[in-house]
């Protein structure tokens, strides 16, 4: 249902906007990496190697002399209640096995980022989709029927807006717990394509057979963010219902449902999709914040890995830094695409939505 004119203005927007190309490239790369994670990840995201923990990324190798506890049988030794220590040269080696280093359990950060992209994007897309579904339904209904329906629906939206989204999300997670967690099988692994590919290249095999879909988070971010869609959809419906072609359809005898689906929704879709792009970014940020605060049930998530890295902030900065960079780059990409769509299609929704 994309009008050729829309495509033309999109192309035009792209040709004069170098940043939009960067944004599309970022989104494409992140999508590719997330979808084909079992092929591109250098290592299994969960594979630990406690002896290789906290390896720095390439380019950050160093050796320092440190006072470290002496260990026997893996445990520290006490002498007169004091820990026995010795001065030792500590090597922080990096290796191409772990180009972005390893985390506290010796897991490959790059592989975790790649699998983390899956969670972020799944939540981003499904959460946005759900929010869109709810918000657009409510918004179109309110805007089309106006009057009391509008009053009731929009006043409820006001109430939702009275909660900062992260606050409401936290409260809702407190209520829902992780009741809605889903495990999605990874088709590439299940069908054996990815393992065959990996063993052919000599990469470690045994990639996870499924991805955890944090259903609670998806529902919660949708419950928190539908309002933005409702506002935009309502605004569109309010103005579209006054368009002459809608009146003409009514004069031809079309009923409300048919007008909504044939005329109002298709013409409201552009701003909704533009908002959707921006909302994916916002929801990815929200998801990462919730994971960071420990409210997500996903095992691998950028926000969660940042939180894991915090305790190493004085010794292994990269554990926190890398997932954050992944978020920033992905969100920048999505925002650039959103800007491009908005500039090209001019739906006039500046300043809607947000984290």
């Amino acid at each position, binding site marked *: 249902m994309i009008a050729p004119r829309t495509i033309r203005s999109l192309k035009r927007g792209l040709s004069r906007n170098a940043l939009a190309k960067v944004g599309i490239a970022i989104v494409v790369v992140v999508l590719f990496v997330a979808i084909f994670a079992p092929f591109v990840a250098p290592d299994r995201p969960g594979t630990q190697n*406690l002896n290789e923990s906290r390896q720095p990324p390439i380019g950050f190798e160093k050796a320092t002399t440190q006072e470290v*506890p002496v260990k026997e049988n*893996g*445990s520290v030794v*006490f002498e007169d209640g004091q*820990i026995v220590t010795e001065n030792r040269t500590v090597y922080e080696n990096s290796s191409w096995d772990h180009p972005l280093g390893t985390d506290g359990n010796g897991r490959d950060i790059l592989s975790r980022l790649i699998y983390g992209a899956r969670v972020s994007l799944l939540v981003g897309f499904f959460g946005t989709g759900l929010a869109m579904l709810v918000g657009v339904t409510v918004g179109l209904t309110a805007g089309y029927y106006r009057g009391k329906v509008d009053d009731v629906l929009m006043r409820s939206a006001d109430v939702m807006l009275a909660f900062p989204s992260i606050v409401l999300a936290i409260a809702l997670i407190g209520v829902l717990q992780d009741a809605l967690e889903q495990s999605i099988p990874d088709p590439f692994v299940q069908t054996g394509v990815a393992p065959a590919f990996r063993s052919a290249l000599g990469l470690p095999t045994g990639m996870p057979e499924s991805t955890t879909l944090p259903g609670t988070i998806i529902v919660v971010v949708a419950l928190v963010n539908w309002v933005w869609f409702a506002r935009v959809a309502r605004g569109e419906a309010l103005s579209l219902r006054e368009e002459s072609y809608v009146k003409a359809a009514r004069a031809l005898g079309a009923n409300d449902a048919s007008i909504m689906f044939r005329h109002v929704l298709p013409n409201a879709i552009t701003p909704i999709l533009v908002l959707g792009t921006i909302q994916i970014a916002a929801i990815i940020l929200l998801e990462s914040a919730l994971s960071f605060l420990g409210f997500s049930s996903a*095992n691998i998530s950028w926000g969660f890995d940042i939180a*894991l890295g915090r305790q190493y902030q*004085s*010794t292994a900065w990269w554990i926190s830094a890398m997932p954050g960079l992944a978020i920033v780059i992905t969100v920048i990409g999505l925002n650039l695409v959103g800007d491009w769509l908005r500039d090209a299609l001019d739906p006039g929704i500046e300043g809607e939505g947000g984290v």
Partner: protein
Amino acid sequence: MPENGTNRRGFLKYAGGAAVTASLAGCLGGGDGGDGTDTPEGTDTDGTDDGGGDGTDTDDDMELPDFPVTITQGNMPSGLDPHDHRETPTDVVMLHVYEGLITRDAAGAVQPALATDWSRVEGEEAAQFQLREGVTFHNGDTLVGEDAAHSINRIVDEEVGFASPQSDQLAGVTGASAPDETTVQVTLDGLNPIVFSEFATYCDIMQRSWVEDRSKSEIGQTMNGTGPFKLDSYTQDEQVVMTRYEDYWDDPAEVSELTFTSAAESSTRVNQLLQGETDIIVNVPPQEVNRVNNSDAGSVAAAPSTRIIYNAMRYDVEPFSSKQFRQAMNYAIDLESIVSNVLGGFGTQTGQPTLPEFVGHNDDVGPYSYDPDEAERLVDESGHAGVEIELNTPVGRYLKDLEIAQAVAGYIDELPNVSASVNQRDFGSLVDELLTGNIEDKPPWYLIGWGEATFEGALVMTALLSTDGALTSWSNDEFDSLLETAANSTGEERIAALEEANALANEEAPWIFLNQQYSVYGVSSRVSWEPRSDERIDAYAMSQA
């Protein structure tokens, strides 16, 4: 205290019938928040004689030094009512102001405190305490028997006070009365063999009139005890400031001003220590130990605690109903590497439910070895190959709990025929499930830590592994009967039964045996202090370095 300077050297194998019922929060490790843990101290090391400040023998006439100390825990006290909490951080604050009738030393031995003498009343189901004379509350009033009796009643009798969360800590105590100014008589509901052990752990004494003049919430905001420090100011969730109580019945403390603050984030605490903003911090994470030790600001002091970290596997659900599978889980993990790398050496590997310092530990039973091939074989043998399992773990309650859980799941996931993942849980909801008393409510596989301040292995096993245990995940007739035997016997026989039970537990592997947790403190170089064994940071025992 000088009257009963006890031997604090060595680790007392305390074998009495002390059965301090585990507290919910204290034992599962509640109340510490953040990544911190709530690590009781265990003095397996030789404590020094002046641990309690009793060794300083200060002259009363001596000018008292100006020596302010700040202690930073993971959490602030939930309130200041000594009878209305179940958390270690709150207890640590309380013990400086309120005292019990009797107390424990670092090794767990019962010592006199406000009572100088205690005994059972012959022929009656009662016990009697003789109060120390000349003890004054911080408001200047003298301690009398009525105060102590009221305090006991306030805990055990809902009518007198409120539904104190500590009432079960004085289980078997039905009430108290004060026959005279210096005597307190406690009535029991039977021949309670552990009554003094109970009183040595809980039962802070408050002034009756002071309590009765105040509302519940006022009591939660201010303090009036007999301890070596008196409250100066309290800002909820921010800080508690105390000053030395110069009329303390014992020598006044060397510490002149004592401030409690909190920082949930371990690195925050370390930074505060290094920047000289605080003097004692709890739970230094292993990766920060070097940073502390390499600095001039302070050093790390550590002690094994009485807490054991384990993974329970519910015996009534597949695949954990299979002994082979449970054993396989133990073989699958490289516990030594976990202790060494994840915990930075701050932990001891375990292979049985009883810690080495505890009564009933079987010295012949060691940890499982790391043998992934054997594990794979056993999984195949169990018939559960290909199973997917999920480890439920709290986050930030125990030292590196999540990292341990991830490491465990990571190792098991390495097995070609098992896949494992970690499910982070909100501590509150996890504990809810564990505490329903109904095994079906528990998750099939979870990580939890259990602290037992009594050094009594039997209590650990009864609570966690016996068929009727409050938090059990296992049921084994042979094991139950061994515990039964131990409960009805004493001495060598009892110990033998317990050791046998431990061996059986090792063989049957109801848990994945993990580590004994260590308490790791950061201590400023201006403070001289030894970690104690009983979760307590006792500022009275601190001196200027």
